[in-house]
């Protein structure tokens, strides 16, 4: 299976699911993060994502390994998009296949939460009024 990736083309749910499918699986769980039309009440037109790319891909691979160790999942697909995305576009996708639903669902939650917590990816929101701001979740 290919490792987790940063991509500059659309994240496609069917492609992620195809990568984790198996006849031995009874479950495929999927999370998609999408660009919301407002943040803290301010109307947003799009989000620009950038990353410390080599470190981000290494950290994403570590998270997938940790999910394998914690939940016994071996079929994990993870992609995060970079560049400027419009409202409604998919910024991140996680798919996990497993024989049973509980490990698949738990692993999806784990992977997205860890990605948001520690992978060096940044976003700058573009607002309807033409201004732009870096998002700082710690502020």
């Amino acid at each position, binding site marked *: 299976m290919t490792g987790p990736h940063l991509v500059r083309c659309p994240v496609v749910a069917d492609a992620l699911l195809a990568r984790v499918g198996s006849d031995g699986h009874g479950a495929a769980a999927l999370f998609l993060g999408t660009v919301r039309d407002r943040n803290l009440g301010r109307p947003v037109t799009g989000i620009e994502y950038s*990353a*410390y790319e080599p*470190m981000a891909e290494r950290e994403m691979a570590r998270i997938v390994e940790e999910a394998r160790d914690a939940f016994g999942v071996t079929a994990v697909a993870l992609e995060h998009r970079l560049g400027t995305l419009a409202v409604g576009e998919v910024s991140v996708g996680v798919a996990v296949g497993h024989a049973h639903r509980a490990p698949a669902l738990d692993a999806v939650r784990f992977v997205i939460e860890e990605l948001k917590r520690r*992978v*060096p990816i*940044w976003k700058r929101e573009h607002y309807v009024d033409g201004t732009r701001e870096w998002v700082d*979740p*710690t502020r």
Partner: protein
Amino acid sequence: MSASALEIDVLLFASFAEAFGSDRVRLSLPADATVATVIAGVQAASRALSDAPPLPATVRVAVNQAIAAPEQRVRAGDEVAIIPPVAGG
């Protein structure tokens, strides 16, 4: 500060890259420099920038693509990067 013994190009991203207008800044550091020294050096350099937007007060540093503790030593040849608060997803 003791005589500079270590020249390090610190990689910058997001708000820091925008503020500096560059994806890196060169710091002259003492030979016994640590991650904390790097953070202080970049923050001092950022204060010298004119009309830059405010930068996050709390940043971390990655050394060779792994988050490093403040007391970790920085050595010539290390890949050193300022990691502002992350916001993927």
